[in-house]
C-alpha cells in the first residue's frame, strides 16, 4: 500500500486548484478560497459551496447541501478517535484533530497511526495533516490565478477530479450488496429527487431514501458488517 500513499494528496491538490478557479469565477477574493480550504477542508463541500453560489442558489439551500455532503465525517471521526486518544489528549485536542479529518488525513491516519506509540499519535496526525493542508492552501491560491489561463479541457479535467475520485473511492470501498445499493441508488436518485423535491432538498431525500434502502438490504442479508 505504500506506493498508494501519494495518490490522495495528488488528487487533493488537483481538486483544490479547481476550487481556486471556482472562487475566482464568482468574483470572490483569492484568500476566501484559501480560507475555505483551511476551514471547510472538504473538496465536495467546497465545490458545492462555490458552484452553487455561481448557479445563483439561495444561501440557506447551499448551507444545507454543504452540510449533507459532509455527513460522512461523522462516522469517519468516530472511527479515528480511538487512534488519536492518548495521554493528555482530551476533548479539546480531539476537536482540533477532528477538524483535519477528510479523505486524505483519514486514509493515512488509519494506515499509519496504529504503528506509533500512543504519545506520538496526536502530534503526528496534526503535523502530517496540517502540512498537507498548507500545501493544499497553496494549490487553492495557485488555482485562483491558473485556471483561467489553462486550455478549457485541462481546466475541466481539474474540476472533474473531485467527482471522479469520490466515485472511485466509493466503488473501491464497496464490499457488500448493501454498499453497492447505497452507491447506485444515491447516484440514480439524484436527478429523480431534483425533479420531485426541487434543488433545495433533493440531496436530503436522495440520501435518506438511498441510504435507508441500502440499510434494509444490509438487514435482509443477515446484517453482516458493511
Amino acid at each position, binding site marked *: 500500500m505504500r506506493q498508494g500513499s501519494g495518490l490522495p494528496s495528488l488528487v487533493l491538490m488537483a481538486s483544490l486548484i479547481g476550487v481556486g478557479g471556482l472562487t475566482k469565477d464568482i468574483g470572490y477574493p483569492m484568500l476566501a478560497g484559501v480560507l475555505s480550504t483551511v476551514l471547510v477542508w472538504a473538496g465536495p463541500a467546497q465545490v458545492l459551496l462555490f458552484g452553487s453560489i455561481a448557479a445563483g442558489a439561495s444561501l440557506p439551500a447551499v448551507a444545507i447541501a454543504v452540510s449533507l455532503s459532509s455527513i460522512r465525517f461523522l462516522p469517519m471521526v468516530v472511527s479515528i478517535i480511538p487512534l488519536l486518544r492518548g495521554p493528555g489528549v482530551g476533548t479539546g485536542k480531539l476537536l482540533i484533530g477532528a477538524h483535519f479529518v477528510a479523505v486524505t488525513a483519514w486514509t493515512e491516519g488509519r494506515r499509519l497511526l496504529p504503528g506509533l506509540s500512543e504519545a506520538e499519535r496526536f502530534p503526528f496526525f496534526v503535523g502530517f495533516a496540517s502540512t498537507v493542508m498548507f500545501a493544499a492552501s497553496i494549490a487553492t491560491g495557485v488555482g485562483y490565478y491558473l485556471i483561467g489561463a489553462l486550455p*478549457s479541457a485541462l481546466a475541466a479535467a481539474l474540476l472533474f477530479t473531485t467527482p471522479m475520485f*469520490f466515485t472511485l473511492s466509493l466503488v473501491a470501498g464497496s464490499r457488500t450488496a448493501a454498499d453497492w445499493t447505497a452507491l447506485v441508488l444515491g447516484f440514480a436518485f439524484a436527478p429523480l429527487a431534483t425533479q420531485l423535491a426541487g434543488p433545495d432538498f433533493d440531496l436530503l431525500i436522495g440520501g435518506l431514501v438511498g441510504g435507508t434502502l441500502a440499510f434494509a438490504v444490509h438487514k435482509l442479508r443477515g446484517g453482516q458488517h458493511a
Partner: protein
Amino acid sequence: MLETLEQASGGLWPYLVVILIGFLPTEIWRIAGVLAGRNLDENSEIMIWVRMVAAALVAGVVAKLLLSPSGALAVVPAWGRVGALASGIAGYWLTRRSVLGGLVIGEMVLITVGLVYS
C-alpha cells in the same frame, strides 16, 4: 436578513459566506463525531445506517456535480461528463482495482471529449 448582513459586512462578505455557509455546516459533523464518539461503536447499527446514508449522499453529490457542473467543467457536454465517469469506473476494474488507473482513464476521456467538443 442575509441581505442586510451582506450590506453591513462590505468587503468581508465572501469570508462570512465561507464561515457561515461552508465551515459551520461541515464542522458540526466533525464535532458531533468527537462528542458522540465516546458512546458510539463504529460497527453499531446506527453507525452502519449513517455510513449508508453518507455513501448515498456522496453519490448524489457526485451526480449533482456532473449533471449541473460549475465553471470550466460545463464546457464538456453532459454525455461526455457521464461517459468519462463511466470510463473511469471501467478503468478501475480493467487496471485490477486501481483507483489511480481509473482516475487517469476517466480524466483522459474527459480531456479528449473536452478538446474535441469545446
